[in-house]
């Protein structure tokens, strides 16, 4: 069954797996214990989950932040994959030397660190009255070189004959995109959606800059505030962290393959 020479591999992989999973397991159990037990080093489940949750709800607008995060990340995901897939499709299937030039110019945007554009973008959003709205949240990261490149790469094996046939049948260029390209590229869309949603859900620096109103805050902002005080209720904190983490973990388990594809996205 198990080969002898692989035993060191099993041991090593088991240790790494344990280290990888343990902090998350501990997060779950800590959320069910009170802060004293957590500090005392209890690592098994307790019966304080309801108390931690009610403490959390008493001090924070948990449902509001959760709703915000789902709304912002959801809208951003839909808009971003639409805009970037249009571009990726255009760059690949209509390519000529001007578009190829434009593409390499757009790639330069990868050189721009978020922290360098933060101030001008903040001023821009403030001027437009977008602060504390989904617009400020998503506008800077709808169009990304990464997603455009991913769709462009994956359009490479899109059958050109199909497009020709559709044109002869009289389908317009945009109908070809909506009715033929989008359904065929389902798996690319799925991978792009997973990675965009995760990035958007986890975003922290930019939301912290533009979502200044408490009612507009996201889950990562909420849990960061929980930990900012002098005395920290660890049970309650981990309950908050749990709420921030569970949605992405569920997506991870259901769509692990798409997530892996999304990460490696543009590399083929």
């Amino acid at each position, binding site marked *: *069954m*198990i080969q002898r020479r*692989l035993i060191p591999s*099993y041991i090593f*992989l088991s240790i790494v*797996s*344990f280290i*990888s999973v343990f*902090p*998350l397991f*501990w*997060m779950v159990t*800590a959320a069910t214990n009170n802060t004293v037990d*957590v*500090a*005392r*080093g209890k*690592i098994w489940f307790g019966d304080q989950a309801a108390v931690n949750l009610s403490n959390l709800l008493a001090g924070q607008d948990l449902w509001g932040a959760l709703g915000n995060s789902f709304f912002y990340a959801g809208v951003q995901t839909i808009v971003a994959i639409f*805009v*970037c897939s*249009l571009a990726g499709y*255009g760059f690949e299937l*209509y390519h000529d030397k001007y578009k190829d030039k434009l593409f390499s110019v757009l790639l*330069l*945007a990868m*050189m*721009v660190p978020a*922290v*360098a*554009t*933060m*101030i*001008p*973008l903040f001023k821009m959003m403030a001027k437009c009255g977008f602060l504390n709205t989904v617009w400020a949240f998503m*506008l800077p*990261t*709808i*169009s990304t070189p990464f997603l455009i490149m991913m769709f462009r790469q994956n359009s490479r094996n899109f059958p*050109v004959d199909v497009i020709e046939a559709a044109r002869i049948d009289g389908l317009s*260029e945009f109908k070809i*995109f909506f009715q033929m390209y989008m359904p065929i590229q389902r798996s690319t869309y799925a991978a792009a959606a997973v990675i965009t949603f995760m990035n958007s859900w986890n975003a*922290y*620096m930019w939301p*912290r*800059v533009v979502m200044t109103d408490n009612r507009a805050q996201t*889950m*990562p902002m909420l*849990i*960061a505030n929980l930990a900012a005080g002098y005395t920290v209720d*660890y049970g309650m904190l*981990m309950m908050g*962290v749990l709420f*921030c*983490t569970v949605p992405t973990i569920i997506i*991870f*388990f259901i769509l692990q393959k798409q997530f*892996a594809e999304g*990460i*490696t996205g543009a*590399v083929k």
Partner: protein
Amino acid sequence: MEKKKRGMSITAKQKTAGWLFLTPATVLLVIMSFYPIIQAVFTSFKTGSSANMQWANPLTYNYSRMFADTIFQTAMKNTFLYLIIQVPIMLVLAMLLAQLLNNKDLKFKGFFRTCVFLPCATSLVSYSLIFKSLFATQGLINTILVKLGIFAENYNFLGTPTSAKVIIILALLWRWTGYNMVFFLAGLQNIEYSVYEAAKIDGASSWQTFWHITVPLLKPTIVMTAIMSINGTLQLFDESVNLTSGGPANATITMSHYIYNNSFGNGVANFGYASALSFIVFIFVAVLAFINMKVGDTRD
């Protein structure tokens, strides 16, 4: 296929459609990336609060101030320290894990892969807070170490400069090793099995096979993951803010964190100076991207 496509007569209508497809993404990138970075350069030569900014006198005031700013120098040192220690360890570990998981005789492959990959599903703030709690003075790690008799009394990991840095590095390793492993796994799966068989027939040891076949064939993946990791580390923010708050006394602060503090932190809105600081990060990232393009070119 390529030739046929080029040879086709493209009607004006199709041409316009082609450009229309690109328009939304292009306009957004110009407004949200290129325009702001130019704005940032102008702002870096100005002083004053956000509402009424004037040209600095002398014009390079913000830049000369930077060279005398010991906190920024610490931030820069910290960022590079994380980079130099964490990135190589992580990439070697990721490659090793991918190599082990790529063995076709290994059982429970899917289980191990999922476990190692799982940390990627946690948000940066979440895992920072988990690590902060685990390594707190009254935290689990301390309790275990004291119970085992390794430490006589609870140690303030996050309140001591050296150990706080080590914890940030450990946390980064935990969060990103599995992420990079995915790239190496994909890279390894692209290597034909026959190559290994040929090496076996020629009598190569497994170490020789790894060093002379696997590593050279993985070179593009190694370069890419290295560039990505360096880029990420240069822009490190969430961990510094949430795990250590940059402390104790700025001992773990990163460049992005310090820039944030100067622009949106506790009541200071020093946009001019922060822009000058961020321009330094921009140069580092740009140099890195440039190297990436050069290395990437030789691949094709």
